């Protein structure tokens, strides 16, 4: 956000917004600059060597800045920044960028594409590495700022506690906030900030969102933020509101255990997992695993992991979760996440290519061996294990997968609904399987025809898009009429407000990253199934994602 350098009117002035996290705090403003965007026009590359050099010089500059910043700090913060500097100066990243420049991308786009693909790998590996994806995103933003000669986006570090003012906060930004130095948060957008709100609440940081005049605030101006009333007082009178550190809201602690609506309708709250430590993951208050991404066992391997190795990993996880359900998604790779031992050849359009369950067309053995390893681990641990195949597009494919899984000895077999064709024929798919889980991230990419590996079309990929919700509703209705469970395992399930809508649309379980569990659990506990259905109707009828979110937020009174 471009800060307004002109001092505000003398005396007090009150800006209003939407209360997002309770509590009051007073402190000086520090403004977060927005991340730079790729220009609308992509230039042709005449001199690939010069273009690569330009990208690498920008990364070297970023690495230098990070090292300099690290040198001014101590302890873990220093080491985090030093590690980030190593990533910025990474020789493999440099090679990946050079490769993309040779393919015709200019420096900015080559950098963006190379970093995005590393982020995908990190996210798919889960745990510690998934968190590092945000560090890569930060490197991308900084390097783009250098290339485009734009202001450097960086979390403000004025050296004293401050009120963070931003156009909008990405979940990753919020996660990295230090509650010791961030007194309060004020954002101008009401956007997908439900993450921001819930994280601010869990950190006990007062927050006001959708504060349309937030751009008038500039670094250093004192403000008093009231997160209960949604007000920001500029230059408050001395002593007006002491800097109260709000207590961590007790409400999160009060609601524990299985997810249920206010009227007792059960909605299983499950965990999305990758390569995290199973025992640590199992310690979370959840009813099991709704999505185990198994790619972490396979990526970066020259040879396929042996059945024995796979069995050991699955068995350890199943044991950790005891009698709680574990839903294993079979290998979701293809030409976008290539495997050396299951070469697919080059595909110009990998998202639409031989990926997910479709890999059985070229190398069925990989899936057979995986299913055998899962089945053996399930048998020997006595765990309740479900398997589901990604990228199933037709009832026939669903039936084929069920056949393979049953042959391996697995009892509960489902599919991920992430291709619009599968949502459209959800009733026929559900007749073949025991359950389905809606993968909202890919379903939104395919429904809105917007590439989710790029950042260019965020509004189309907004999970509040009514078209996406209509498809989810269609799957939910099919599940209800056939009496089969319909889960949601995409990022949409992690948004407490949207979670209510999903339940209203017929979701019987929600699977998400661990930090989102308390907020979703609490939202459900405050609303009946009937409320959820009413909210779903509002969202379905809305003109667009923004209107859907606002209508539901307004009805809920958040």
């Amino acid at each position, binding site marked *: 956000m471009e800060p307004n350098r002109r001092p505000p009117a003398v005396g007090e002035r009150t800006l209003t917004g939407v209360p997002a996290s309770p509590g009051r705090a007073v402190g000086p403003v520090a403004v977060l600059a927005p991340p730079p965007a790729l220009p609308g026009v992509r230039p042709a590359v005449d001199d690939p060597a010069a273009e690569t050099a330009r990208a690498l010089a920008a990364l070297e500059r970023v690495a230098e800045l990070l090292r300099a910043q690290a040198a001014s700090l101590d302890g873990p913060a220093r*080491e985090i920044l*030093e*590690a980030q500097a*190593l*990533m910025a100066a*990474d*020789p*493999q*990243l440099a090679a990946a960028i050079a490769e993309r420049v040779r393919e015709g991308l200019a420096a900015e786009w080559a950098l963006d594409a190379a970093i995005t693909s*590393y982020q995908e*790998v*990190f996210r798919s*590996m889960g745990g*510690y*590495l998934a968190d*590092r994806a945000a560090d890569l995103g930060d490197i991308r933003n900084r390097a783009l700022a250098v290339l485009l000669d734009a202001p450097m986006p960086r979390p403000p570090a004025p050296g004293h506690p401050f009120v963070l003012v931003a156009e909008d906060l990405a979940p990753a930004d919020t996660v990295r906030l230090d509650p010791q130095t961030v007194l309060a948060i004020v954002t101008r957008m009401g956007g997908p900030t439900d993450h921001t709100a819930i994280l601010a609440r869990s950190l006990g940081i007062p927050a006001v969102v959708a504060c349309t005049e937030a751009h008038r605030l500039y670094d250093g101006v004192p403000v008093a933020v009231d997160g209960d009333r949604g007000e920001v007082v500029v230059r408050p009178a001395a002593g007006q509101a002491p800097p109260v550190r709000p207590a961590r809201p007790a409400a999160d602690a009060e609601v524990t255990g299985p997810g249920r609506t206010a009227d007792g309708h059960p909605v299983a709250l499950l965990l999305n997992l990758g*390569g995290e430590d199973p025992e640590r993951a199992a310690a979370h208050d959840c009813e099991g695993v709704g999505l185990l991404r198994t790619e*972490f066992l396979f*990526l*970066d*391997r*020259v040879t396929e992991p042996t059945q024995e190795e796979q069995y050991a990993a699955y068995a350890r996880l199943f044991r950790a979760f005891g009698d709680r359900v574990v839903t294993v998604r079979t290998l979701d790779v293809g030409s976008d996440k290539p495997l050396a031992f299951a070469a697919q050849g080059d595909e110009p359009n990998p998202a639409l290519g031989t990926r997910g369950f479709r890999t059985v067309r070229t190398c069925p053995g990989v899936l057979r061996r995986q299913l055998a390893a899962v089945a053996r681990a399930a048998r020997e641990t006595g765990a309740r294990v479900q398997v589901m195949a990604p990228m199933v597009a037709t009832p026939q494919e669903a039936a084929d997968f069920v056949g393979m899984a049953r042959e391996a000895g697995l009892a509960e077999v489902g599919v991920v609904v992430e291709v619009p064709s599968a949502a459209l024929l959800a009733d026929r798919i559900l007749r073949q399987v025991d359950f389905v889980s809606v993968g909202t991230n890919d379903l939104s990419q395919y429904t809105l025809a917007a590439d989710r590996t790029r950042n260019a079309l965020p509004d189309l990929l907004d999970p509040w898009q009514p078209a996406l919700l209509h498809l989810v509703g269609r799957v939910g209705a099919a599940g209800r009429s056939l009496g089969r469970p319909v889960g949601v395992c995409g990022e949409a399930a992690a948004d407490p407000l949207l979670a209510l809508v999903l339940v209203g649309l017929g979701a019987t379980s929600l699977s998400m990253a661990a930090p989102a569990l308390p907020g979703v659990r609490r939202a459900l506990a405050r609303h009946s199934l009937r409320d959820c259905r009413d909210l779903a109707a509002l969202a379905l009828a809305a003109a667009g994602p923004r209107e859907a979110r606002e209508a539901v937020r307004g009805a809920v009174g958040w």
Partner: protein
Amino acid sequence: MTVAERRVTVASPVGLHARPAARFVTAAAAFDGEVYLARPGGPRVSAASMLAVLTLGVRGGEEIVITAEGDGAEELLDRLAEIAACTAD
């Protein structure tokens, strides 16, 4: 030119992540020669690449094989083995 190889067990409970990875990569990147890291029998990756080392996803208690080619390879391996065997995270 010296080629040296060493097998060590990663002692840090977080595995070759975070601080141990940063120390490991910093030491490897400063070496004038090639340094590789692998699981026993597995594919090797450049030990001078933070991204490669992180995506290898080595966990605490796992055995790794470090190979270095160049002058002072043995000394470098001493240092890398020490970092890998350090129990602090």
